[in-house]
């Protein structure tokens, strides 16, 4: 499952790295084309958004996260699989032509055809917040599985339990790509005696 070019980074904020094969971490820049097996790591304040090139399925990776992006290209579609080694991601999955869109963590598997959800993974387990459609959410340890729909959340823990409950809106992470770039900007316009305009731009976080 290596080598196929499958996705492109469309937005990068803060410190984000990618690792290809046995190489060392490289700074990620927008426009970077991901190959299957690339590892993406975000540091504090970092954020990356990428789009799969076959159907525009979006994957958004928040700060302090690590994901392995894998996919197998065929003529019709890309079979996609994300391994989340901790952190927070949002998947906006368009209808899949081939197989499910699969997100794995150390304790859970989320499998979908087309939906929008957040997945937060840490040492205690995984939390999945459904935003649209239905996500099949399975615990790898117990094999137990539940469906998470819009407005519901599910928790899958390392003791094998998995359960769902109504989403508390306060727990939904903020999506940096829904607002601004994160870099705030102050623009001050100056005009000289001849009427010529110049602008001073101050960027801050």
């Amino acid at each position, binding site marked *: 499952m290596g080598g196929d*070019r499958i996705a*492109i980074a*469309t*937005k990068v904020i803060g410190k984000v790295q990618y690792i290809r094969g046995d190489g060392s971490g490289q700074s990620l820049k*927008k*426009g970077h*084309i991901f190959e299957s097996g690339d590892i993406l790591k975000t540091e504090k304040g970092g954020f990356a958004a990428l*789009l799969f*090139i*076959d*159907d*525009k399925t979006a994957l958004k990776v928040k700060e302090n996260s690590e994901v392995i992006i894998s996919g197998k290209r065929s*003529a019709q579609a*890309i079979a996609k699989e994300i391994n989340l080694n901790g952190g927070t991601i949002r998947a906006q999955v368009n209808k899949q032509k081939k197989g499910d869109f699969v997100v794995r963590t150390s304790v859970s598997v989320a499998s979908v055809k087309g939906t929008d959800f957040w997945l937060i993974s840490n040492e205690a387990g995984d939390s999945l917040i459904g935003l649209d459609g239905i996500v099949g959410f399975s615990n790898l340890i117990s094999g137990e599985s539940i469906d998470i729909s819009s407005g519901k959340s599910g928790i899958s823990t390392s003791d094998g339990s998995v359960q769902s409950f109504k989403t508390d809106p306060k727990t939904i992470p903020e999506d940096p790509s829904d*607002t*601004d*770039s994160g*870099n705030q900007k102050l623009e001050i316009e100056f005009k000289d005696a001849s009427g010529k305009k110049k602008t001073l731009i101050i960027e801050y976080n």
Partner: protein
Amino acid sequence: MINGQTRLLHHTPPPHGTMGEALTLTASSLEISDPIETTLYYRLPGSESYLEIDFIKTGFNWEATIPGFALTEAGLEYVITFKFSRDRLVSFPEQDPFNQPHYLSVIPPKSQPSVGVFGELPSADVIILSPEPGALVDQNSILIAASFFSANKVDPASVQLYVDGLNVSAFMIFEDGILSYDPGPLPNGTHSVEIKMQDYDGESISPVNWSFNVGKERQSLSDLVRYNGRLNSRLSAEKLSGTSLNIAEVMGNFNVDVQWAKLKTDLRLTSRESPHTQPHNRFGASFAMGDILDIHVGDHYPRFSPFTIDGKRVRGLGLDANLKWIRLQYISGDLNRAVHERGGIGGGYRLIHGLTSTNTDGSKTYYLDRTGFTFKRKVRGFKLSTELFSRIKAGVNFMSVRDDSTSVNRTLNNSIFPSDTLVLGVTPGNYTYDEFNSLLTAAGHKLDAPTSHWAGQKPQDNIVFGFNLGAIFDNRKLTLDFDWQMSLHNKDIWDGVMSIAGLDTALDDSLDGYIGLQYDKDGNEITGVTKISTDQIFIDPDKLKDLFIINTNMTPLVPIDLNAFGSSPISSIINMPSSAFNIKLRGNYARNSILVEYRQIGPEYVSLANPFLRNNTRQFTISDRVSLLDRRMFLNIGFKHLDNKILRTTVTPLNTNTFFMNLTFLMGPEMPTFVINYQSIGKNNEKTQLDSVGSQTVDLREDSKAATSMMAVTMPFTSGDVKQNLTLNIGSVTNLDNLTNKRSVTYLFPKTDSKTSSISLSSTFPSQLKTVALISQTKLEIPSMNGTELIKTPYTWTHLSLTANQKFFQDKMLARGSISLLNSKSHIKSQLLGLRAGADYRIQDNLSAAIMGQIRFNYVPSYKKDKVDNDGDGKIDNASEVLDINSSGIILTLQYNF
């Protein structure tokens, strides 16, 4: 332009239009009075019906703007009509305008759109990755990206990327089907992206275009709700030949976008609105929920098919639900509103002396007919269609149009009509109904004023139903479409529905189970008379009256020719006189756009919702539009045969054979553009003998050829700092009678030859001054007979004009002015000198005002010594006859955008 100088319409066609760009056409009338209706009709070449736009008066000219979407590679056909009082009509083109409209070549814009001659170019499945179309993105976060994952046929080497019109292909990355380009920070505002590409055969593929916005994120409410609109008010005060004309109009639109739904409203309120005419006001709103549902309320322009309704205005409800695999369109509303009378004297009643009868006591009964009315015409219909697997298209449709005979007032209390000396005992003058009736009764006469079944217009009923089938081949490069429709039309529903027994005795007096069967005095059947068995009417008319009113005024009574059905059933079905169909094959291959089409409209086919349909026609068309020299040269060539030979009984069919050729050559940016149009129309009615009318013979034979040609060259050049465009335009219409040698010397071949030439120079100066200088000349030779002598009366119009625009005050003000001289040379020489001046001023970013004043002088030197009181002021050959103010006026406009 038909019957003399005072009815002339002057219009110089533009050399060409530009694809996707709105085009303003200008026409002027030399008529003393203003026209009642000024309409521009336009359509895609070969279409069945026209769309209509009203002209707007702009001083001494009339202007109408064709929207950009109507200008495609296929060109455009248009007709201009000016309607004056008493149904006088002048048109451009002059002869048979709706069947032979003026063809206008349309050239591509600088950046070529994805519109092909008969639709879209072949497309590729390119996925726009970033930015999303229409998205608002931060200045520093712009990445332009697209995926060619599913676009296998695209040659990667051909892919070119344009941002804001600039070719940035050298800076883009294109790897493994992924295109990306980081443009760096872009200025706030809207930016466009275009990806051009070709397939491996070098054929152009429809480019991918989208735009996005750079700027700050809006506040939360404006994220959810966006709105914009425009409000435009216009006041004009004019004086035409001593008659004042003041018009006030308010036009506007308002659009709300709440992401999942959009609301659009359009409004026009004008002081021209009158209860005596169809509405001039327009109001409509459309509500769209994504791509799934469109709801229209008020004025809208639905389209089912060319044979049913195709852009005619409907005031009412329209619904269009598109669920990808199935689509439902529905309409319910009015095509016409009820008009009770035309207004003015004689606008509601008319005495018909031919129907005056003498009573046994010698007194008279006078017939007073209602006139000037229009019934409310209701329309209802639906179309259900589907496109399956991008391979098969199918649909069914039904439409009902019915006049509401109760919508018009049966009597008018205040309407005044004239009475003359033919009415005995009543002094000639103008009277109301009651006044006239009283005087007539006092004089011992009677009045017959029916409250229905009036002699003029009859209430009608019409249903149209049919289906369409289509097939799509080879990635939409080849399509085959078949559309079949049938109509039932009742020309007079005053008496409502008839029973079967009523139909039996409607044409003959015998209740014998046959319609139309007659007997001789011995009770034997008269042979040779068309008879229809009532057994063949398998439906009870009374049960269908809500759907369609069946009586003896309907056509067809029996839709199929039963006599011919036995011998050739397929031909009988195809040639049903009340059916219409077309079969169309379109192909886009190797830079060619090919059309082969056969279309037939039966002599009894009627759709009241499509007044432009010309029935009793068969038409075969074959045409090809080919692009050459990397889409710099376009050749459109074709042949059409039109006749009316549908019925076997047609003895002298009129055949029209049209060959057309349009060549457009665009050498490139800042290089000359050439347009050449040629059309040859041959007409033949297969008559070989002269006809007899009474004791006289008349020559109704037709065997003629009309050749229309036009050549235009536009040359851009720069002289110093001045950018200029020089356009030369030469055109002619030549008519030839192929039977000249076989005609009588007294025969008049009535067709008019014409020649047109024009030269214009548009200049843009560094100071932002823009000027356009125009010289044009049109020459006609109108034939007439003086005994056995053929006289060709020449008419020549020479038009000189100079227009200038200049911006001031940091572009806040645009001053405009023009001077125009129209020299008319015929029996009477006259000159019209027009002056126009005004300015547009931008008060705020979203508020602007404009003022325009105009004055036109009419100079007729021959009136100085003709010893005639030409202006009717009681003085002969006074100075005001020679030079007078033909028209003057002022127009104020205020526009607010929000």
